[in-house]
């Protein structure tokens, strides 16, 4: 809108008085970030799937219907059935808890270990900083998938182990980000002022440096959450995650792969669900990053 337009708009006061109410509603609607609302909606649904799967589907995710194998999507089976006659939608809903808890555990490992490393490195500086950051560089240098596969082989298969393996690859990113934030905040005048008021190192760290560095780390956590779901699905797809009867999303994609020609939905729908959740997490992360000062 140019200056002239808005100017004319304001001078027309009588009209403005009548339409002000409508305009406000319209403006509010136009300003509503549709993508963000959708993202929250997606994430809420998935969380509800994980928390109360029985509300969403009447089928058992593990028990197949004999004779009902590889059925196309229909009113009875919304997303069709797999090679053992199990309802795909039920498997997706019941699988949410595996993917979500795995992702949360993975991000938790990365967040806690990574931020702690970054906090120590950024605030202690000197030799400690150099040693920790070179370690992080080594972690970054190994391809993530290779690293998580090596860790799984050391720890053994399973959902929890897969989560730890994915979390370990996230440590480097968290450590880097946290360190740069800490270095920024540490040079702020209020931190020096806190030392000047007689604060000990630990107190200043806890009271000033940590809370002021966390905002972007929290935004990064949301991105990492999406990324962790993707990684866990990848491990599941490769067969390093949860063992077969578990309706884990990556495993669903892998199992459907054999029937791609006849039952494309078995691979496509779980894949789309993973993509949607990852995108939603990214969108939410962006909004966190923007709203922070």
């Amino acid at each position: 809108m140019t200056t002239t337009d808005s100017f004319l708009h304001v001078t027309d006061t009588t009209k403005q008085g009548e339409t002000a109410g409508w305009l406000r509603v319209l403006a509010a609607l136009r300003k509503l970030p549709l993508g963000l609302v959708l993202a929250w909606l997606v994430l809420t649904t998935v969380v509800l799937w994980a928390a109360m799967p029985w509300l969403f589907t009447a089928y058992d995710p593990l028990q197949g219907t004999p004779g009902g194998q590889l059925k196309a999507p229909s009113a009875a089976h919304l997303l069709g059935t797999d090679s053992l006659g199990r309802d795909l939608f039920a498997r997706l809903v019941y699988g949410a808890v595996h993917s979500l808890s795995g992702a949360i555990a993975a991000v938790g490992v990365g967040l806690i270990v990574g931020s702690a490393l970054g906090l120590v490195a950024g605030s202690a500086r000197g030799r400690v900083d150099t040693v920790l950051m070179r370690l992080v560089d080594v972690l970054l240098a190994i391809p993530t998938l290779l690293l998580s596969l090596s860790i799984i082989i050391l720890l053994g298969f399973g959902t929890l182990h897969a989560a730890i393996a994915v979390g370990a690859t996230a440590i480097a990113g968290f450590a880097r980000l946290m360190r740069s934030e800490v270095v920024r905040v540490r040079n702020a005048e209020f931190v020096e002022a806190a030392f000047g008021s007689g604060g000990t190192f630990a107190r200043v760290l806890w009271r000033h440096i940590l809370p002021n560095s966390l905002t972007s780390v929290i935004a990064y956590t949301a991105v990492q959450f999406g990324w962790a779901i993707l990684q866990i699905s990848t491990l599941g797809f490769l067969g390093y995650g949860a063992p077969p009867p578990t309706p884990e999303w990556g495993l669903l994609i892998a199992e459907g792969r054999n029937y791609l020609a006849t039952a494309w939905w078995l691979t496509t729908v779980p894949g789309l669900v993973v993509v949607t959740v990852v995108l939603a997490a990214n969108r939410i992360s962006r909004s966190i990053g923007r709203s922070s000062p």
Partner: protein
Amino acid sequence: MSPVQAPVLDVRDLVLSYRQGDERAAVVHGVSFTVEPGEVVALVGESGSGKTSTAQAVIGLLAENGRIDSGTIHLNGEDISRWSSRRLRNIRGAVVSLVPQDPGNSLDPVMTIGAQVRETLEIHGRLDRREADRQVIELLTSVGLSEPALRIRQYPHELSGGMKQRVLIAIAIALRPALIIADEPTSALDVTVQRRILDLINDLRREYGTSVLLVTHDLAVAADRSDRIIVLQGGRIQEQGRTEDVLAAPQNAYTRKLLSDAPSLATARPRPPIEPGRPIAVTVRNLVQDFPLQSGKTFRAVDDVSFTVARGTTHAVVGESGSGKTTTIRAIAGFQKPTGGEIRVGDLDVRSLRSEELRQFRRKVQLVYQNPWGSLDPRQTVQAIVEEPLLNFDPLPRDQRQARVRAMIDRVGLPAALLSRSPHALSGGQRQRVAIARALVLEPDVVVLDEAVSALDVTVQAQILTLLAELQRDLGLTYVFVSHDLAIVRQIADTVSVLHNGRQVDYGTVDEIFSPAATAYTRELIQAIPGRKFPRAAFDRPPLAAAGPLS
């Protein structure tokens, strides 16, 4: 400057507003003024008075969320207030140009000086390269930049602040505009550089007959440099008229207040002399501070500085940027280990302190920072900020601690209702009061103030200085006060050190420093203080013999 000529700029009933969320906040309410050819008009006001918004509207550079609600802006007889930005682009630089506030940020760091000046010439008309270069060198010579042929190949980081501002002025006058808008052109510069830049703008105006709209918060600058003054407050003109008339007989209460608050040599009443025999609170002897440089060499920031401060008095450390004044006081506050020399606070040798002793030492010496926007944690409330030093030292029960915080907040003149607010909800003056409260809550002996009032408006500045004087009288505090503003120093200091390039060139009582006996450098500093035309400039400036270039 005949009155028949049409004004260069004629602003009528200008109303500006900014969009904040769904609301529009009006910042300028019906401002009208004119600028005649060859005239310097000063737009004076504190922050938030709408002076910068008005200037931005004139050149069509209002922020994205700002707009002109009503009123007209006639530039050379044409109303430009409804022009599109494309049409405005044609007159920017050619008819009206801007000298921005901060020379440090206003030049492109990856372009040479020559290329940036040439750009202006090229945008408004084709020139071949050699002709353009010749004009650039001519321009840089006319703004008094030394070795212009060398400068055009240099990058902004190779130039000092004063030189950068000269380049920006060269860009502004490149196309001989009818009007130059100078938005606080010298606020970021030292007083001696400030004087040279303002002299330059004045010379150029005389030579080319360009009009100048000078936007400034500094009434003293406006008084010295303008033909007419417009005083703005809260987006409304409080007073406008010929500079001499406004200064001699201000009609408006706000103008009178601004005049009385402006720290000028005229209004500064020297403090009574300190009686001899007071105990010494701070001793600095032969202080030397070196910093290692990237190249492996060392840079000597402070070189052999010595002074003593008696208990309950104020010692001012004065100098231009880079003179080592901040380094000196940071060493006193224990934030830096000096390379050589001795610093004693009371009976403690600051240099020998180790970590826990240093922490205990903080009870005695507190530092107040220049910038109250950076020195308070944005995530804490006022209560938490002032309480923090107490938590670090005194294991007081909660209610006693809160009582002390409340008493301190009251002592610095803030209402108790602010305790639960966070710093971003406070004004600059209120923040600085909070910072002072935090420094005083431990009841220190010595308070080190690093340019503690330079980031504030004059009226707020005057209030904080009064508060500091009161607190000194009541609590017997000793101040070490760093400032570049000699007018303030004369108002509040008992003794003064003048630093220049890390060396102490003058040291003595305020009267000695402001006497003709001071060194040429100190007299140059005093000469450069704006405000000579203030009506009550009773203070006799020492004559300056053979002033050589210093900047």
